[in-house]
C-alpha cells in the first residue's frame, strides 16, 4: 500500500477535471444509483466533492471514498446530462485506478483480472468445464425467460436467475473466422465479447447470419481477450493495459473495414475508453488505437448506417416487443434509432416503447456482483417499465443488460422473453 501523501499527489492530477463541477446537482435527475438510495454520496456531484476533498486532505479516510466511488454503474448518464461538460468517466476510471493501486487488490480480483482474463484459452477451458458440470448445481427458474438459479451457491452469487452457460460457446463452433467480403464489398472484424461468447452464442450466430445474408466478410481471430472494462472498472490498470495490448495484437493479424460488436459495453470500451486510457501504452499501440477508433461500431448501427439495408415499415398486430436503451449504446455512442428500426422491420412483432427506455437497468457489469441488492432495486424499476409497456418480448443491444433483465423478469415470474436486437432482425431474414 502506498502512503497517503502519494495518494493525494496522484489525485491532484485529476484536479483540472474535478474543478469543472459547479455542484449544480443536475446529475441527481438521471443517476440510477441516487434514484434508488437518495444519498448524495451516491451521486456524481457527491463523489466528485469527495475526491476533491480527499485530494485537498479535508477527508482523511480513502477507504470511505473508495467505497462510495464503487457505488457507480459507470453508465455515463450523468456525463451525458452534465451542464458543465465535466469528463466524469475519465475522472471515475482514473480515480478507481489510483485508489485501486493505493489499496491493492484482493486475491480473487488478482486471479481474475491478472490471471484468467489474460489467457483467453484458459478462460474458455474453465468455462467450458463449467458448462458441462453446471447441470449438477443449477436448476431451471423460468422457461419463458430462459433462466436458471443455483441455490447451493447463493452465498457467492446471491439468488440470481441467470441464463445457463451455453452448452457450446461461440468459440467452440467457430474458433476463428476469415471470410472474404461478399456482395457488400465490406469486411468486418467481429468482436463478440465475453458474454455473447459464453452465455449467448445465439446472438453471435445471429450476427454471423446477418453478415452472410448481406455479403459481409468476417474476420474473427482466435482467442480474442476481454475488452478490459471489468479490470479497469475495478481499478486494475495494469491488467487492463495487458488486455488491450493482447487484443491489439490479435486484431493486427487481419484486414477489415469496420470492427463491430453486439455488446454496447464492448463497443464503448473499444471506441471511447481505449483512446481515453491510452496514455500508459507504447506509441505504436496508441497509433493502432487511433486508427481503429473510426472503424469501431455497434453492430446494429453498422447494419442500418453502413449497409443501409432497406427495411420494411413497422407492422402492427404481431407479438409486442419493447426495447431497452443500453447506457453505453445511447449515452456513449448515440445509438438509439438504429436498433428500433431493426426491431420494427420484423413483421412478426409490433414495437412498443416502454417508459424510461434509456434509464439504466442496474447491471453495470461487475457492479451487480459487488452490489446485488442495489442492482436489484434499480433493475426492478426497469422490470416494472417493461411489464407496463405490455410487451411479450424485451429486446436490448447489450448482453450484460440482457442478463440483468432476465434476472429481474424471472424473479418476478413474468413470462417475458429477452432477446438481442440482432436475433430479432436475423429471424426476419
Amino acid at each position, binding site marked *: 500500500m502506498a502512503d497517503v501523501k502519494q495518494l493525494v499527489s496522484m489525485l491532484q492530477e485529476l*484536479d*483540472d477535471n474535478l*474543478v*469543472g463541477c*459547479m*455542484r*449544480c*446537482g*443536475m446529475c*441527481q*435527475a438521471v443517476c440510477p444509483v441516487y434514484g434508488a438510495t*437518495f*444519498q*448524495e*454520496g451516491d451521486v456524481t456531484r*457527491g463523489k466528485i*466533492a*469527495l475526491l476533491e*476533498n480527499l485530494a485537498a486532505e*479535508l*477527508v*482523511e*479516510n480513502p477507504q*470511505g*471514498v473508495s*467505497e*462510495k466511488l464503487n457505488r457507480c454503474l459507470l453508465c455515463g448518464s450523468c456525463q451525458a446530462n452534465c*451542464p*458543465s*461538460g465535466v469528463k466524469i468517466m475519465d475522472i471515475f476510471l482514473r480515480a478507481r485506478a489510483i485508489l485501486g493501486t493505493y489499496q491493492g487488490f484482493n486475491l480473487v480480483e488478482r486471479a481474475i483480472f491478472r490471471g484468467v482474463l489474460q489467457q483467453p484459452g484458459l478462460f474458455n477451458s474453465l468455462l467450458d468445464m463449467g458448462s458441462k458440470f453446471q447441470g449438477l448445481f443449477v436448476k431451471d427458474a423460468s422457461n419463458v425467460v430462459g433462466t436458471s438459479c443455483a441455490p447451493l451457491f447463493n452465498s457467492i452469487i446471491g439468488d440470481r436467475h441467470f441464463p445457463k452457460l451455453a452448452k457450446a460457446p461461440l468459440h467452440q463452433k467457430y474458433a476463428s473466422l476469415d471470410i472474404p467480403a461478399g456482395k457488400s464489398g465490406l469486411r468486418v472484424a467481429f468482436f463478440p465479447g465475453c458474454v455473447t461468447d459464453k452465455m449467448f452464442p445465439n446472438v453471435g450466430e445471429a450476427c454471423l447470419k446477418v453478415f452472410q445474408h448481406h455479403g459481409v466478410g468476417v474476420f474473427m481471430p482466435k482467442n480474442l481477450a476481454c475488452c478490459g472494462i471489468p479490470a479497469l472498472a475495478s481499478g486494475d490498470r495494469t491488467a487492463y493495459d495487458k488486455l488491450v495490448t493482447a487484443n491489439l495484437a490479435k486484431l493486427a493479424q487481419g484486414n477489415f473495414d469496420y470492427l463491430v460488436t453486439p455488446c454496447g459495453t464492448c463497443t464503448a470500451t473499444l471506441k471511447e475508453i481505449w483512446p481515453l486510457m491510452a496514455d500508459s501504452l507504447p506509441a505504436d499501440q496508441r497509433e493502432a488505437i487511433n486508427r481503429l477508433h473510426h472503424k469501431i461500431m455497434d453492430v446494429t448501427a453498422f447494419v442500418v448506417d453502413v449497409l443501409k439495408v432497406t427495411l420494411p415499415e413497422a407492422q402492427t398486430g404481431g407479438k409486442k416487443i419493447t426495447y431497452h436503451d443500453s447506457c453505453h449504446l445511447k449515452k456513449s455512442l448515440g445509438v438509439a434509432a438504429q436498433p428500433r428500426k431493426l426491431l420494427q422491420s420484423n413483421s412478426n412483432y409490433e414495437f412498443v416503447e416502454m417508459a424510461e427506455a434509456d434509464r439504466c437497468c442496474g447491471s453495470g457489469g461487475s457492479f451487480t456482483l459487488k452490489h446485488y441488492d442495489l442492482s436489484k432495486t434499480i433493475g426492478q424499476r426497469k422490470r416494472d417499465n417493461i411489464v407496463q409497456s405490455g410487451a411479450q418480448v424485451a429486446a436490448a443491444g447489450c448482453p450484460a443488460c440482457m442478463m440483468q433483465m432476465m434476472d429481474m423478469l424471472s424473479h418476478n415470474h413474468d413470462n417475458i422473453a429477452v432477446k438481442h436486437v440482432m436475433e430479432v432482425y436475423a429471424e426476419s431474414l
Partner: protein
Amino acid sequence: MTKVSAALVKEFQSIVSEQNVFVSEAERMAYSYDAAVLEPVMPAIVVAPTDKEQLCKVVKLAYENDMPITVRGSGTNLSGCTIPSAEGNAIVILTNRLNRILEINEQDLYAVVEPGVVTAQFAATVAQKNLLYPPDPGSQAVSTLGGNVACNAGGLRALKYGVTKDYLMGMEFVDYNGNLIKSGSRTVKCVTGYNMPGMMVSSEGTLGVFAELIVKLVPPPKASKAMMAIFDDINQASEAVAGIIAAHIVPCTLEFLDQVTLETVEAATKAGLPVDAAAILLIEVDGGHVQMVEDDAAEVVAICQKCGARSVDMAKDAAHKNKLWEARRAALPSLARAKPTTVLEDATVPRSQIPAMVAAVNDIAKKYALRIGTFGHAGDGNLHPTIMCDRRDKEEFKRVEAAVDEIFDVALKLQGTLSGEHGIGIAKAKWMEKETNKATVDFSKNLRRALDPKYLFNAGKKVL
C-alpha cells in the same frame, strides 16, 4: 469522528431507523456543500426522516440538544442556504424521502405534497391531468418543492405566471418544540389567523421546518407562439420590452442574452447565432385561444420591428421553436464550460433599468479584467451576470468578489434588489441592511428570535 455522542446517534436511529442516520466521514462530507461557490462545512450528523411524525421528533430532539439545524432538499440553491451552519454538532435534516404527492384535486385545482417532491416530477404528474404548476426554476429537474418554497424560487415564466409564493395556499411546518403548525387552506380565500405561509416563503430554513405544502394549480394554455428578435443596440431591445408591456401583452417568457453570452454560446454550439448583435430577445406568448395568441405574436413582431430589431424570427413549428430556444437553454451550460468556475448572480432591477444594468456590468467586467456574460429574464428585470473564472486562482477570485459587491451596489442604486430568485443565504446576508435599513434587520431578528429562541434554525443565513 462525529462530534455527536453515541447515545444521541442512537436516539436519532430509534426515530428514523439505523439506515436513515449517516455519521461516517464520507457520508457527512457529501452534505457539506450546495451549488453556491462557498467553502464546505461538514455536518456532525445527517438524518433522513420518512414521514411527518419522524420529522417532528427529529426537530424536537435536535433542538433540545442545541444542534444547529439545516434542512436540505436537493441542495441546488446558489446562496449557501443548505451549507451546514458551523463545524461542531450541526445536523442536516434531509427531506428527499418525504417525497409523496398526497393529493391532486382536479375540481378545486390544488395539490397537497410533502416537501421533498421534485419540482419537475410534480409538474409532469399534474400535466398528465391536464393541469399546470407554473414555477419553473432552472434546477426544476432536481429541486424540491420544499426548497422552492424556502427560497421562493422563480423561473422563466415568472413575468406572466408569478413565482413560487403565488402558488402556495397553505402549509404545515414544525416549530422548534417539534409541534406541527397549520396555516392556510385548500380554499382560494382564507383569512383565518396570520398568513404564515406568506411568512415561511423565502424564510430559507430560518423559522421552521416544512412538513406539508398545499399548492395552487392552473389550467394550461391552449396555444403558444415563440420568436427571436435580434438587436444591434441594447436600448432598442429594452424599448421593445417596454413596448410589449405597454401594449398590454404579457408574454409567458421574455428572455434576454447579451453579446458576451451570444459569443460564448456560439463558440460552444456553432448554432449560427448573431455574435455581432448587441442582444437578442426570446419571446413566447401563450393563452387560452389560438387566435388571440396569433394576434399577440403578430403585435410583438411589429413592436420589435418598430423599435429597430435587425430581424425577428417567428417559430413556424415545434422543431423551429425548439431551435430558437436552444440558444437560451445553452446559455448557462456554455458559460459554465468556458472556464472552470461559474459565479452566477441574480441582481434584479426594474425592467426599464436593464440597459443601465448591463452597461454597468460591462464596465465592472472591464474594471476587474473579468469575462462576464449576462442573460436572464428581461420581462421581470431579473438578470444573471455570470462570471467565468477559476476559483483556484486566488488573485482572480479576489477580483471576482469585488466585482460581485459592485454589481450589488449598482443594482441597489438602480432601485433594484440584491436577489431576484437565488436567495440571501450566506452569500448576501451581510448586504441586507444596505438594501433595507437597520430597523428592518432588527425587526427580522426579533421575528426570528421569537420563533427560534436558541438561534439554531439555519444559523448564519439570511439574517445575521
